[in-house]
């Protein structure tokens, strides 16, 4: 089985989709020189017209993508770090999310927003923050996040082919993870969760780097507590069916998410489960999230973000 790193898998999705469709192109800052390896060598292969570097100006950069999408092109716009989307936020959130719907569903807006996110490099709040909850909050935008090289390629390809704006942040902590990635072209439909490990005592919903942590804890608890681990992969649309089906078996839920607790993805899932599957629950749903503080860049990063110890403690608490 061929293995690629996570970031190589994203790169392969770019190459695949750019070859399949002339209208696909990448735009960002310093992507020709490849700040991160997913754009390595692409300008040599596809030329400066399709690998577009812009001035240091996020509104102009995003405007290039947004306007090009209205003109029928299919841009992937790379913000480098997720927090930088906030520099042009009225555009990336409201103007983007409302374009199709508010204007009478006349025209699609096929574009992909991508960026690195996540703790682990001690870069502090503005470089380390998550952005998926923020984008989920704003209607009209799909939001997905891969946790394996296989999913990275498949979700990125699906995002590029989707006729809607899709935000796909990727976690720096996964960049160099290796895994099986088929050479042939495939997609993972947006909105499909995956059971990454089967279990019977409790369900843990965890994404991105936290999926890794959750799987590690599940393996550790084997024999003691049987943990089913689900990766949502897509936050919006969210695959509620897969989660509810799992809860029918386990009746217990822990949600792990690196985004902040307040108005975050984990809270939304918890509230939806309570609304739609209250009778399935034998115990409170516990969330393991980043507490509501600006993410510190110092050594405290290790224990402020969710980690295996906190996940294990939550599982034990729910199963007690």
């Amino acid at each position, binding site marked *: 089985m061929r293995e690629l790193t996570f970031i190589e898998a994203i790169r392969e999705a770019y190459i695949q989709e750019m070859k399949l469709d002339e209208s696909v192109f990448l735009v960002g800052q310093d992507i020709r020189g490849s700040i991160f390896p997913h754009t390595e060598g692409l300008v040599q292969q596809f030329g400066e*017209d399709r690998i*577009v570097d*812009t*001035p240091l*100006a*996020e*509104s*102009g950069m*995003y*405007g*290039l*993508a*947004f*306007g*090009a*999408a*209205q*003109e*029928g*092109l299919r*841009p992937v716009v790379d913000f480098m770090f997720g927090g930088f989307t906030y520099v*042009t936020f*009225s*555009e990336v959130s*409201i*103007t983007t999310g*409302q*374009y*199709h*719907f*508010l*204007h*009478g*569903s*006349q*025209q*699609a*807006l*096929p574009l992909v927003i991508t960026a690195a996110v996540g703790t682990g490099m001690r870069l502090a709040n503005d470089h380390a923050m998550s952005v998926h909850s923020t984008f989920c909050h704003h*209607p*009209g935008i*799909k939001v997905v996040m891969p946790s394996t090289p296989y999913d990275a390629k498949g979700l990125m390809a699906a995002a590029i*082919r*989707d*006729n*809607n704006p899709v935000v796909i942040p990727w976690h720096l902590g996964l960049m160099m993870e290796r895994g099986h990635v088929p050479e042939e072209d495939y997609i993972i439909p947006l909105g499909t969760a995956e059971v990454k490990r089967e279990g019977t005592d409790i369900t843990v919903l965890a994404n991105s780097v936290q999926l890794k942590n959750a799987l590690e804890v599940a393996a550790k608890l084997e024999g003691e507590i049987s943990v089913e681990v689900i990766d949502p992969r897509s936050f919006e649309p969210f695959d509620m069916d897969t989660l509810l089906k799992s809860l029918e078996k386990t009746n217990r839920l822990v949600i792990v998410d690196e985004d902040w607790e307040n108005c975050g993805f984990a809270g939304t899932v918890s509230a939806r489960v309570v609304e739609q599957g209250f009778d399935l629950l034998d115990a409170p749903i516990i969330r393991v999230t980043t507490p509501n503080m600006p993410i510190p860049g110092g050594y405290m990063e290790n224990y402020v973000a969710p980690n295996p110890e906190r996940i294990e403690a939550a599982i034990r608490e729910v199963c007690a």
Partner: protein
Amino acid sequence: MALSKKQMITLFTNLVRADRFDKMFYARMLQGKLIGFYHPGEGAIAPGVAAASFLNDDDNLSPHHRAHGMAHNLSKGIDLKYYLAEHTGKETGCCKGRSAFHFSFPEKKVYMMSGFIGYNFAPVVGWGFAAKRRGQKQVVMNCSGDGSYGQGRAHESMLFAKTMNLPIIYWCENNGMAIHSSIEDMHPTKDISSLAKGFDMPAIIVDGQDVFACAEVALKAIKRARDGKGPTFVECKTLRFKEHDMGTKDLKGYRARKAEELDPMREREPVLLATKRVLKDGILTQTQIDAIGAKADEEVAAAEKFADESEIATPTVEELMAAVYAPNA
């Protein structure tokens, strides 16, 4: 670029039409027969007509929000009855009655408006990029007010346009005001177009009350853009006769605008000036002018009839939810 007789008639006709539509909207708003906002256009409709009357269907247009871009849109060949229907919440509206006062005519490359002043500056970069990439000589007419150039988005847009040599016209309809703020208090130079100097972008200042003068400049800037010579900044010095939007007081700073200020403005009303000119130059006779007015009135009446006879849009929440995302084939 001297205008042909035909071009002058087109401009005059569009100007009269824009004026009648603006007056109809104003009157309907007073009668409670429009939803959302209305930002009256009186005094300021000439630049929009000039900017849009000679664009091709496949040129991009971002209309200025004043008079809700009606001068621009009708000049681009858009039938405004669908906009009135939208503005009255009807199913036949251009946005299916969902948007109140927004619009979208993608078949004419008028994609949207948004409530954020300065929103236009970002997407025009993408339209210009796409036009350049296609190489079919389309241009992007980017219209907005003096106030909008306060936004940093304007800077980024001009930076991209000049650096990438994009075919974008920065068409500034400078009425000297942004809500209550007067430009003397809010901008450090006499002319907004001084901003173009920062990017070494050519700039032209024109009398925004004179639709023909504006059109000559528009044609020049459009030609430059089509010829691959990049962006141009055009500053149309125009006027605002009425309050910023209906319901807001008509102040300058925090004092009521005075008759001494407003009265002389009215002598520079664009339809008045254009009428004098076409008569003087023998382009149109008074009879022809009257016919143009009558036809505009008919068009306006037909739009009102269409909107009034359309059903109010009341889709279910489920139907609306199903319309949030574009389908995938």
